């Protein structure tokens, strides 16, 4: 097995009294698609904020390709090859689809190399080349999500953190997104995915980490996770009891 792209050890984040993440461990092996699931408020977005340097962790360690990177800045993360597609798609509204993706290609991991080619590749891979000259403002949710992923992809990431890429998509669009994520993985990008759409999660992921109220409650293959009683309990709504120590 090659070196893991991302290793998380004892990662903890406290916001004043609230513990958003509590000593979580996880490893994202190279070339895989991993999942991060859990009920709303479980700490999924906090996890991504810590990994991408938007927030400093309170405790614990993050290693990226074997190097300790705990507390790095978003720019350092971006330059090193971590790209992120936000949960609420955040395109640059005043720019066209192509300009958006081109900025990803101009910056990101390797800087301005083959900018136009990287832009075209990312647009084509997400199937939005026909929209290239449209302003990003006013795109449908489905197109916005694809733009979000295309811009992240154009940055030539090693690791793509995709925060609910299928949220708000209809079944056909979800299928297209799943296919695109597979192609991105086949192109050599490791993916860590937050997703509520179980079809997407179960179909795509090699390994899944389940968190609830900030704690890791299960980890394993999709089959193992789906059969885990703690996961079922968390998803069926008994997480409140659990949080209170019942």
């Amino acid at each position, binding site marked *: 097995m090659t070196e893991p792209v991302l290793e998380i050890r004892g990662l903890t984040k406290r916001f004043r009294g609230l513990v958003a993440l509590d000593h979580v461990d996880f490893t994202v092996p190279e070339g895989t698609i991993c999942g991060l699931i859990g009920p709303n408020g479980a700490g999924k977005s906090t996890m991504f904020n810590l990994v*991408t340097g*938007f927030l400093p962790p309170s405790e614990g360690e993050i290693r990226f390709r074997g190097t300790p990177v705990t507390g790095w*800045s*978003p*720019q350092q*993360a*971006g*330059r090193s090859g971590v*790209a*992120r597609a*936000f949960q609420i798609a*955040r395109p*640059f*509204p*005043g*720019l066209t689809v192509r*300009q958006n993706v*081109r*900025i*990803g290609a*101009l*910056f*990101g*991991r390797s800087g*301005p190399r083959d900018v136009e080619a990287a832009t075209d590749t990312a647009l084509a891979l997400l199937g939005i080349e026909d929209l290239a000259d449209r*302003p990003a*403002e*006013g795109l449908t949710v489905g197109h916005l999500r694809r733009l979000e992923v295309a*811009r992240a992809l154009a*940055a030539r990431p090693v690791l793509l953190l995709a925060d609910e890429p299928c949220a708000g998509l209809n079944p056909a669009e979800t299928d297209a997104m799943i296919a695109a994520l597979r192609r991105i993985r086949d192109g050599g990008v490791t993916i860590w995915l937050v997703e509520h759409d179980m079809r997407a999660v179960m179909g795509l992921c090699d390994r899944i980490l389940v968190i609830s109220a900030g704690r890791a409650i299960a980890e394993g293959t999709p089959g193992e996770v789906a059969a885990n009683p703690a996961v079922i309990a968390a998803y069926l709504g008994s997480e409140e009891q659990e949080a209170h120590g019942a």
Partner: protein
Amino acid sequence: MTTRILATLVFLAVLAAAPAFVPPFEVRVLSLFCFWGALSLAWNILGGFAGYWSFGHTVFVGVGAFVPGVIVAKLFDGGGAELMPLLVLVGGLVSAAFAGIIAWPLLRLRGIYFAIAMLGVAQVTGELSAAIEWIGGGVGLSLPDAVPAALAPEAFFHYIFVGLLALTIGAAAWVRGARFGQGLLAIREDEDTARMLAVPTEGYKIAALVLSAFLTGLLGATYGFSLGYITTDSVFRTDFSLNMIVHALLGGIGTIAGPLLGAAVMVVLTQVVLGEMLNLHLFATGALVVAMVLLAPQGFLGLWRRKPRAQREPGP
């Protein structure tokens, strides 16, 4: 692209040739257009491209004009006319250095907070230039007459302002096309996403402010020489700060032609159409700005292009 460059060069050549064909008053109006247009375009590098609106850009006009004024008073005893090009350059450089110093704390502020902080910097710096006796902004400073004998004063300054306009257009066009400019656009559109994409946001914002201040400082220094005698009130002018924003808004913020178009409209309106009615022209300016914000938030260029865009909050 080349046609655009060609058209710009023809435009600048026609402007530069004006003193040979039109009377002095019209030359002055055209010089004013170059001055205002270049100021607005320099403001636009930070305000339009990066989305950081400065409400106090006149501070760089003031610093640019005062630096040669103080140097001339202290070192050349009112002389040094032959050093004008050097003095203008030093005015621009000190302006840029000043921007570099205030950039670090100020550019941590976003949106309206940065705008207001710049307003404060301009007010305080203006007050200091008047209050510190050594500088002498309250009484005023003389700048030497650098006009060569063969040229009329308005023609001499017109050539310089056309040259500075050309420089500013060149700088803005370079920024727009460069990776730097794309990074600034990303900052304007969504700074956090820009950071995530590894845009060096802090460095780019500082560079944009410093470049903008350098160009504004050159313009301020030249303006000072064209006045011949400067006081705090004549160069630290709040209406300069406002005009830079208004021109960019009128023509089309974030573009290169926009600020120039806005400046042209305002120069024609205030100097030609309403030149005889000084009391009316502020009223007309205000009315025009209100009308534009309501009817054409993207400026004249936006009207012309008719991009299918939803209305966005036009500012910080």
